[in-house]
Every structure is written in structure tokens, then in C-alpha cells.
């Protein structure tokens, strides 16, 4: 049998369809990719929880009922920039992913930031800390959603120097994130009248901190600033207690702590720590309602971290923007420009804006970890002790090195 006429007929139909669909209506398909650490030391603060948050955002957006088709995939970058970029390229070229979510780990984020810009996709980074994403490395395709090293340094650093902690020693994770956090915090300390008397850089994912802690102890600095995250921070805090560092009069400053870390440490060890976050599940009715739904669907019933909350919030704004555009133009820079025009509003981070450099603005909260007897139940961990307004919390545009900012 000769199949050629059928084949060419099918081809013709397909071509005709392709030609008309573009003219008739805007494309209403969206592909979301959650690129995160699914198996390593940051998996609890992002990981599967971020994918769940994205899933919830897709469900809550109600896009499916309005004729949109939203696909979600996720992958593990294993905290390795080379793996992250390889996945990013494949996702954009083969899977046609429109928007990258989470992308925690500053090293990976800076690498993916470049790929996304080169291929005109979108990066809504909710997990990485480095403030370079909206400073020297800023991109018309990237929005930095939740927090950054400048904000953490500004809020926690200033508060501690004001409280008398004027000499600092840093324990720093030896990669892009740790370096950025130490740099930004040191700047704030010096600006507020304090002094940095030393620092030590430890490899990412270190189990034993005793050597580094002894060096910090010997420095006699009043504040030991932990410019690290996740499992590194929890191990540092736990072992600092063992070596009598806090009992000896030195104070630990968690520059980046997540609620999952506090949960892992237990209140007995973590009590009294001061640090900054932009989201806590028990802030208001909106955050409580979301967190309850989230926790019920998590395998270990965990409350959302600010990174996971950011995935939800970022996607909600992204979906709103696409609705406003009437379809998905699959043009990263164009969508991001529109996202910056529109004010953001969601139950988790409240009302906010996105600046020209890609920095999402919202208030920063200074928390203190409760004493065990103050906690009323599981996950009741934080006391709010200070709030920095959205316009004060992040690096002012006047100090920005971002080429997108017109001066």
C-alpha cells in the first residue's frame, strides 16, 4: 500500500494548524521547572517542598479552568553549577521550559542566570542568597524573589552591632554564597561602627566544625558570624554549644537560617538565636492558611520555608502577568518586564513590587528563636522582634552596580 498520500496529507494539516493557531489565539501553555537540591544538605529548605509549592500555585491559580495548560517538572542540580547549567540548557532547548523556580545555591544560581539570559527564558530565584543576582550580575530575565545577602547582612548585622556586638569573626562556606554573605555583612558591620577581626573559610558540607570553632573562639570576637547555610549551620550551632562558645560569652549570629534548620536543631539548642527571614508560617491569617495546607501535603508534615513560600508567591505573580498578557509569548525578557510593571500581591508576602534590577521588595523580619517553654506546639519557634520596611530592607538602587538601573 502506498502511504505517501496519507503522510503528506497529515503534514499539510499539521502545517495549516500551526499557521492558523498563531494567528487565531495566543498560546496558552506554560512549562514550569523547579531546579533545586533534591537530595543534599539543602533538600529540606527547597527540594520536594518547592515542587509541592509550585504544584499548589498551579492549582490555586485556577488557570486550568480558564483554558491554560500548565506543566511542571523538577530536577536535582546536586549543588553543582555544571550539572545545573546542563539541566538548564536541556530544559530550555528540549523541554521548552518557560520559567525556572527555586534554583537555590548561589553557585548554581549564578551559572543558571547566564544560561537563562542567553536563551531568553525566565529565572525567578527564591533560594539563592547572593545579592550579585540583582547587582553586578543582574539580568533582564531574572527576578530575585525572597531574600539576599545584602538584606540579611543589613537586618541581622545592624541589629547585632547596635546591641553591642562590635567585633566579628566569620565562619564562611567556601563558595559564591558564603563569600557574598561575608562581604555584605562585613560591610554593614564596619558601617555601623564595628570591626571584623578575622574569618575562616570551610568547605561546603562539612561535618566537623571543631577546628574552625576553636579558631573563632581564640579570636575573642564578640560575635561569630555564620556565613553558611543548611546542614553546615546546624552543625556549627550544635558544636558551638559543645565547645562552650556561647557559655564563654561569645554570641553566634546565624546570618541565614531557615525554619527547617531550627526544627532540626530543636529549641533547646537553637533558643535565643537572632536571624532574618522574609516569611514565617505564623505571621498572619494568609500565611497560616497556606502553611497548613502545605504541611498536610508534606511527607514529614513540615511547615514551608521562605524558599518554598517564595516559589508559590513568585509563580502566582508570574501567572497573573501571563493572564494580563492574554497568553504566553514565550519571551522571557518581555514577560519579566511586564512582571516588574505590575505590583505583586499574595497571601504569603503581602503587597510588594519588583524593581528594575529584578529585586522583589517586601519587608524583612528579625526573629528570635523561642525558649522551649515559650513554644506552644510543633513548629511554634519564632518571636518577631523587628521589621524592616520593604523600601529599607534591600540594597538601595543608588548603590547598585546593575546596568539595568538608569541613573
Amino acid at each position, binding site marked *: 500500500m502506498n502511504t505517501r498520500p496519507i503522510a503528506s496529507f497529515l503534514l499539510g494539516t499539521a502545517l495549516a494548524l500551526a499557521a492558523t493557531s498563531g494567528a487565531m489565539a495566543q498560546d496558552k501553555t506554560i512549562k514550569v521547572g523547579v531546579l533545586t537540591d533534591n*537530595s*543534599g*544538605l*539543602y*533538600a*529540606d*529548605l527547597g*527540594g520536594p517542598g518547592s515542587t509541592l509549592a509550585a504544584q499548589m500555585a498551579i492549582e490555586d491559580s485556577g488557570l486550568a479552568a480558564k483554558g491554560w495548560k500548565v506543566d511542571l517538572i523538577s530536577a536535582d542540580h546536586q549543588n553543582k553549577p555544571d550539572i545545573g547549567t546542563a539541566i538548564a540548557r536541556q530544559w530550555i532547548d528540549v523541554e521548552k521550559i518557560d520559567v525556572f523556580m527555586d534554583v537555590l545555591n548561589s553557585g548554581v544560581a549564578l551559572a543558571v542566570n547566564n544560561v537563562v539570559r542567553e536563551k531568553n527564558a525566565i529565572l525567578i530565584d527564591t533560594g539563592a542568597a547572593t545579592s550579585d543576582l540583582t547587582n553586578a550580575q543582574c539580568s533582564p530575565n531574572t527576578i530575585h524573589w525572597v531574600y539576599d545577602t545584602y538584606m540579611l547582612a543589613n537586618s541581622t548585622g545592624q541589629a547585632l552591632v547596635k546591641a553591642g556586638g562590635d567585633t566579628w569573626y566569620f565562619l564562611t562556606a*567556601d563558595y559564591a554564597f558564603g563569600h557574598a554573605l561575608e562581604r555584605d555583612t562585613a560591610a554593614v558591620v564596619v558601617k555601623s561602627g564595628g570591626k571584623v577581626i578575622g574569618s*575562616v*573559610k*570551610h*568547605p561546603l*558540607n*562539612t*561535618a*566537623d566544625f*571543631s*577546628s*574552625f570553632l*576553636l*579558631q573563632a*573562639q*581564640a579570636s575573642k570576637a564578640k560575635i561569630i558570624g555564620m556565613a553558611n547555610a*543548611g*546542614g553546615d549551620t*546546624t*552543625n556549627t550551632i*550544635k*558544636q558551638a554549644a*559543645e*565547645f*562552650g562558645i556561647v557559655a*564563654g560569652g561569645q554570641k553566634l549570629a546565624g546570618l541565614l537560617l531557615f525554619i*527547617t*534548620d531550627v*526544627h*532540626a*536543631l*530543636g529549641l*533547646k*539548642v537553637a533558643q535565643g538565636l537572632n536571624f532574618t527571614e522574609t516569611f514565617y508560617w505564623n505571621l498572619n491569617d494568609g500565611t497560616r492558611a497556606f502553611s497548613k495546607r502545605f504541611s498536610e501535603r508534606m*511527607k*514529614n508534615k*513540615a511547615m514551608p520555608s521562605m524558599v518554598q513560600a517564595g516559589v508559590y508567591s513568585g509563580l502566582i505573580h508570574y501567572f497573573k502577568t501571563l493572564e494580563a498578557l492574554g497568553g504566553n509569548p514565550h519571551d522571557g525578557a518581555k514577560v519579566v518586564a511586564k512582571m516588574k510593571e505590575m505590583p505583586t500581591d499574595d497571601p504569603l508576602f503581602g503587597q510588594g513590587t519588583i524593581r528594575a534590577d529584578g529585586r522583589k521588595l517586601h519587608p524583612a523580619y528579625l526573629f528570635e528563636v523561642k525558649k522551649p517553654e515559650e513554644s506552644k506546639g510543633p513548629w511554634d519557634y519564632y518571636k518577631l522582634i523587628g521589621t524592616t520596611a520593604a523600601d529599607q530592607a534591600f540594597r538601595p538602587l543608588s548603590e547598585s552596580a546593575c546596568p539595568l538601573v538608569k541613573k
Partner: protein
Amino acid sequence: MQALYAQLLVGLINGSFYALLSLGLAVIFGMLNIINFAHGALYMMGAFVAYFLLNNDYLSIGYWPALIVAPIVVGIFGMILERTMLQWLTGLDHLYGLLLTFGIALIVQGVFQNYFGSSGLPYAIPDQLKGGMNLGFMFLPVYRGWVVVFSLIVCIATWFLIEKTRLGAYLRAATENPTLVRAFGINVPRMITLTYGLGVGLAALAGVLSAPINQVRPLMGADLIIVVFAVVVIGGMGSIMGSIITGFALGVIEGLTKYFYPEASNTVVFVLMVLVLLVKPTGLTGRAA
């Protein structure tokens, strides 16, 4: 100078874990010829068993009994592994044992991570070992001192058991020539199973010891096992005393690196491994096969 003493001591503490773990590996490799890549996962299981013993709804079993119970529980798990899977690999190339145990490690770690997440669970230092003493040059937490002393005792006892007792002699003979030893009426397969259980128990013991220092995390063993393998390679595969001494020595060297050039502290062991392999491929105390 004071700081240096402190770093030496801290290195010794880490060395105790390396020694305990590489000792178990050496016992298993020396007696069974299995490269036990599941060692890290079994170490992690030891810590988790200690955690479950303390935190369950029925009865809270504290640290001291856990030091005995956890190695036995995990040891039994190990013996089941040996009986059901590893024993079929006797006589095959090392690679098969390595791949099988590596697979087991991935599965065990995956299951634990699925249920407990990656940040881990807290385990407090037992009351009797809380606090610390001021040694003049450093503040030594009592618990860390205990770890060094206790693991040293366990290491020497194991060495004595294998190298100096009749049981150890049977064991060594059974590896050398199983058929002949069987002819003397000794149940060689059972002895091998028990030896694997012993090696695994040592890993679990190290896990219990480390639970109060580190977070009890599903990946705690995965992070450590590669270093421990380097220790075994440097010490000489299968050499009991070699792995004990190398364990402590490398802990100290790593500790010094953390002081002089911290950025290299997680690679120094491997640099040494390469050097040793270049100069003396059988390891420092190993004999040519």
C-alpha cells in the same frame, strides 16, 4: 602554639571516627574480601537506631544502652544482608561486592531521606558527659574526650581479638583456605556471617558515638565513607593495625590542614592517598597480595 595543640587534639577526635570506621572496613575486607561500600549507610543506621531507642512511644532507651543495642541491631541487619545477598558473591571479582554494597547504601539512604528529610534529627549529649574542662590551651568537651578514649579501647580490643586470640586465628585461617578449615569441623560460612556482623557493628557503634556531635542525618555516612575509604587505602587494604593508626594519623593531619589552609581540608586526605599509591601501592602497612 597553643592553638596548634588544640588542633592536634581535635584532629585526634575526628581520627577516632576514621579509625573505628576504617577498622570495620578492614575487618570485612581482610576476612571476607568484600569492599563494603554500605559501611557509611550502616554507620548512619547506627545513629538512627540510637535516635529511635530514645525517641519512641514505648520506652526511652538512653545513650549508654544504645552503645550496645544499636550495634547489635544493625549487626543483625548486616548479617541478614550477608546471608541473603553477599554470600552469593564469594569467589567473584571484588567489583561485584562493591557494586552490590554501593547499591544497598543508596537504597538505605534513599529510604531514610524519604522519611526523615535531609536536615536531620537532634540527639542530645548524655547528661554524664555534658560540659567540658579547660585544658589551658583549649576547652575540651567531655564528650569528645570520651569518644577518643572509648574508640581507642574498641580498636585495640578488635585488633587483639583478630590477631591474638584462637578465634581470630581460625578466622584468618578460614580466609586463607576455607576448605581446609572446614575439614577441621569449623562452620566457615557462619563464622564469615558473624565477622561481617562484627564489622557492621563497629560502623553502627561509630554512628552512635557521633550522634550527639553531628546531626543524625540520612547522608551523614555518605559524606564520610569516601574519606574512610581513602584511609583504608592509605593504611593498606585489610590491615587491622594499619587502618587504626592511619585513621588517627589522618584525623590529625586533616585537623592541621584546617588550621593552616582550611580551604584544602576536605581534599588533603585524597592528596595523601594519591601520594601513597604512587610510592607504595599496597598502602603503608599492606603486604603485596
